[in-house]
């Protein structure tokens, strides 16, 4: 089932069997895309949206020098360019970071869903609002946190998102990103990321080796990154995050 992870564990937005079947039936194509391939370019008309089934994808913007800022990453279960349904074009590029399997859904099918199934339409809207909530957290991360805090916050967020998708046990998950990817996510140089990762490892907060992230103490890492999972609208806050809240000193 291709939609198994879509809105999984999201507060008040889990799909019913009927809704899941409707989206499954709307899928036009399922394909696997090689790593580091652009699937949508800014400004190009789009007639379909993409549900990520496996792999990691990104949204990004390049500056005039060609230096890249990743403005979002997408994980399995994300309906990653649902925004293009009402907007028809995107203002950024979308690309794979790893090999990715995606399902494409024609906008005509989404249009039919909005006319026939208002509750499912609300849930699709929820998915785009969740993206917006994550964007706000990314702004906070870049605007307020130091280098270590940015990396800690990102890894906590990814851990929680993958936990919701059933792809993390809360302390350990696979993540095939490079230090260059982390640098472009967190607005740091790769050598700075390397240094921060070593610090986190030496402090016993996190290790990231061979595409495997291990977080021995999720609460301590969350405290270091001022991470509060409220913006992820999880149905249930897992035990490993139950004591986590960004607090004002």
């Amino acid at each position, binding site marked *: 089932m291709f939609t198994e992870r879509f809105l999984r564990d999201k507060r008040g937005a889990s799909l019913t069997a009927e809704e899941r079947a409707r989206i499954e039936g709307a899928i036009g194509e399922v394909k696997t895309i090689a790593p580091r391939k652009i699937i949508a370019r800014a400004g190009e008309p789009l007639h379909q949206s993409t549900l990520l089934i496996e792999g990691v994808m990104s949204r990004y913007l390049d500056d005039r020098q060609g230096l890249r800022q990743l403005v979002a990453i997408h994980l399995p279960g994300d309906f990653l360019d649902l925004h293009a349904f009402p907007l028809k074009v995107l203002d950024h590029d979308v690309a794979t970071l790893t090999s990715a399997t995606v399902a494409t859904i024609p906008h005509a099918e989404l249009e039919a869903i909005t006319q026939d199934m208002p509750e499912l339409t609300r849930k699709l809207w929820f998915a785009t609002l969740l993206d917006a909530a994550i964007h706000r957290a990314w702004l906070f991360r870049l605007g*307020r946190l130091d*280098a270590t805090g940015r990396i800690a916050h990102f890894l906590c967020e990814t851990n929680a998102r993958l936990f919701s998708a059933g792809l993390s046990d809360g302390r350990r998950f696979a993540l095939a990103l490079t230090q260059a990817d982390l640098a472009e996510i967190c607005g740091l140089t790769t*050598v*700075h990321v390397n240094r921060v990762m070593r610090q986190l490892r030496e402090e016993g907060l996190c290790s990231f080796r061979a595409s495997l992230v291990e977080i021995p103490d999720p609460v301590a890492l969350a405290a270091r990154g001022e991470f509060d999972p409220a913006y992820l609208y999880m149905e249930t806050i897992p035990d490993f995050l139950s004591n986590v809240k960004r607090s004002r000193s």
Partner: protein
Amino acid sequence: MTPDTAGPQPETEPGIATAEGGLVFLEGPDGVAATMTADAAARTGQNLIDAAAVAATQRASDED
């Protein structure tokens, strides 16, 4: 209307600069996180010292 806050304020604590692998890492103040070559770091440091001297003069004249 947003809740009343003081908004970002001038930093009163310095950033921390460290050297590693032939590069300089500047951490803070606040959310600053920069990596510089030795030359860029030295010139940035001199720029800060020069600007700080001017700023100190400006404060003194404001208080007169």
